[in-house]
């Protein structure tokens, strides 16, 4: 009776705690210098190229990458510590987040030497930002059904189609797009490829889309015969599906999958005071137990990634549980926070709560919906 999933225990080495101290000191100095205001709701919805550059100067972007590409050759666990501290501080990490988490590692794994030399050092300096072009108007969960296509032309590819819900496309420099380069045959996962697309290329237009919380973080990106040089093909043509699925454990298991509303929870602790009524205290204790556990699960996945494994099943487990947790926080706060709904109570708790309630629906959609994650877990259990 062996479980199909496995979470190896992990202990952070002492140098991680030293690093944590450095990050906390940096963030305190940043916050008191007033460069940005901490926020809660939706991780990464605050975008600050200046902040990203200062972070890059500290060596905290591309931390795990080889030095020859500007990286720091540090461990995944050290990177983990930095990212969790940034999120809990509500730092404006959106600009570099995707390049650091996903695009850079993808290029390290599958990209050409030329692509790495050209793009990775700028990512590490906090100067080059990426977005992810997977979803389309008719393709969300069913990613393999995408229609944006790239046809071979002299010296490269010509891309036509549209990507939708592309976070931060308006302020990014490049997109890694999943496109169809050959018709789907028997195997619908065949014929897909990944391209690095320069967002300033002619024929490419970006339209911001306002979300229900009033922000315009995501966009529609339309390609009208956009030329992409052949040097910008990532990995092999036709290998896009395999490459894209190898990103998923990175995309799904990080602390951003359960910390989206952590600042609201901390604000609740402040509001409750030292001696809360029992119902509120018990609700807080329960959430603390969940958070402590989720963090250990997520750290365990980071440890497995460090060891070179591809823990997609474990990442799906962490993300689904983590999203449920971050969605639950506002629901708990509504019911147990004392002193709510006073006229003019335009305070931190109310602000964070409003942001959390409005952004909550996106938590269980972005990066793979709840239902899709549970399907992956079921398959991992040996069902279907």
């Amino acid at each position, binding site marked *: 009776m062996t479980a199909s999933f496995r979470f190896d225990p992990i*202990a952070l080495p002492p140098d991680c705690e030293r690093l944590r101290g450095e990050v906390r000191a940096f963030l305190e100095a940043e916050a008191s210098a007033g460069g940005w205001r901490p926020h809660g709701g939706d991780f990464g919805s605050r975008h600050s190229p200046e902040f990203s550059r200062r972070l890059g100067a500290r060596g905290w972007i591309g931390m795990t990458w080889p030095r020859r590409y500007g990286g720091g050759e540090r461990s995944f666990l050290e990177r983990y510590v930095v990212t969790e501290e940034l999120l809990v501080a509500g730092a404006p990490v959106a600009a570099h987040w995707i390049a650091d988490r996903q695009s850079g590692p993808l290029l390290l794994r599958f990209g050409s030497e030329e692509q790495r030399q050209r793009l990775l050092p700028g990512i590490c300096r906090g100067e080059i930002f990426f977005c992810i072009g997977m979803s389309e108007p008719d393709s969300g969960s069913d990613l393999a059904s995408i229609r944006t296509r790239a046809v071979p032309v002299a010296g490269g590819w010509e891309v036509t189609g549209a990507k939708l819900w592309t976070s931060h496309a308006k302020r990014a420099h490049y997109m890694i797009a999943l496109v169809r380069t050959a018709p789907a045959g028997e195997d619908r996962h065949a014929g897909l490829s990944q391209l690095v697309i320069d967002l300033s290329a002619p024929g490419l237009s970006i339209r911001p889309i306002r979300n229900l919380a009033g922000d315009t973080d995501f966009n529609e990106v339309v390609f009208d015969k956009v030329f992409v040089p052949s040097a910008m093909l990532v990995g092999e043509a036709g290998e896009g599906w395999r490459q894209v699925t190898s990103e998923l454990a990175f995309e799904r298991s990080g602390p951003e999958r359960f910390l989206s509303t952590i600042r609201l929870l901390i604000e609740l602790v*402040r509001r409750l005071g030292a001696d809360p009524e029992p119902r509120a205290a018990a609700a807080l204790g329960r959430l603390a137990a969940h958070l*402590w556990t989720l963090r250990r699960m997520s750290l365990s996945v980071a440890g497995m990634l460090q060891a070179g494994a591809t823990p997609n099943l474990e990442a799906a487990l962490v993300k689904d549980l983590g999203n449920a947790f971050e969605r639950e926080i506002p629901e708990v706060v509504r019911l147990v926070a004392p002193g709510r709904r006073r006229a003019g109570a335009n305070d931190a708790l109310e602000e964070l709560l409003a942001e959390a309630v409005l952004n909550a629906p996106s938590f269980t959609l972005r990066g793979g919906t709840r239902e899709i994650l549970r399907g992956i877990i079921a398959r991992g259990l040996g069902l279907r």
Partner: protein
Amino acid sequence: MTDRLVDAAADRLFAGQVTPPLHAAAEAGTFPEALWRAVAEAGFAEALAAGAGLAGLPEAVAILRAAGRRAAPLPLAEAMLARWSLGAAGTDLPPQAVLTLAPVEIDERVAAERLANGWRLRGALSFVPWARAATHLVLVAAGGLFLLPAAGLAPRHDRNLAGEPRDHLALDAVAERLSLAAGRDPALLYPLGALCRAAQMAGALEGALALATQYANDRVQFGRPIGKLQAIQQQLAQMAEAAAAAGVAVDAAAAHIAAGGDAAFAAAIAKIRAGEAAGKAAEIAHQVHGAIGFTHEHPLHRLTRRLWSWRDEFGNEGFWALALGRRMAAQGAEAFWPAMTA
């Protein structure tokens, strides 16, 4: 041995020996002597007592998880805790001695009165695990520790939802007060008991998940295995999440405490998480199994009735959530995140 090897060894032992007839006999009131001897010979009851302080906790937790997976009907957690609390004073006891401990209810106290020849101990003790099968009882009273032979205690038989002995004692006995072993504060027995029950639950959750996935692949309705139905898949995925979270909470709590972290803090987390997982997972397991899972014949209830019992013993998730929440609130907002990463 690494905890993984310990788990594998324990899993082999329990898988081989915890059979349906053994369960039937245990529920009918027969203590599984042969199984207990095998467990004693493997040194499992001494896993927690071995080593300094609580260094043995990760290994103990791995063994309890394996025992929970097979619903082993034994006072193994109790014996581990009792032997740990005794320290060197327990090393004279034969390996196959059956130890239990009391009180296990948070609000029960034993009155201890000093006499010329020792201490007179009096009190009503409820739900003492396996008192009827025990050879020795470790008693916590007046902040001290006492070791009593269990013969003559005349327990009133009772049981938990799983049919495990939980007996009541009207205690009036005289015993020597033991000197406390360094780092083995009897006040830790309650949170450690909670962690042990959480470990047993983590195991039972794995066992129940394995049964439910197997059943979903085997049971055919509408011409195909029910495991192909998305409604069933989504349920089992949530059950897997519950089992995974309980397992991680237990392992991480044990590692935290073994490394010198606060036992009440980490044990609270493990008991809250495993307790919540137990209710959810048991519900899903039964739903997936249909009527066959509601029969005495089917093995599922050996695990689920234990989950329902264990989640309430040594403090349920409500009790620990209140304790943990009060603690977090008292420490204040700025200390909240540092406590999560410590």
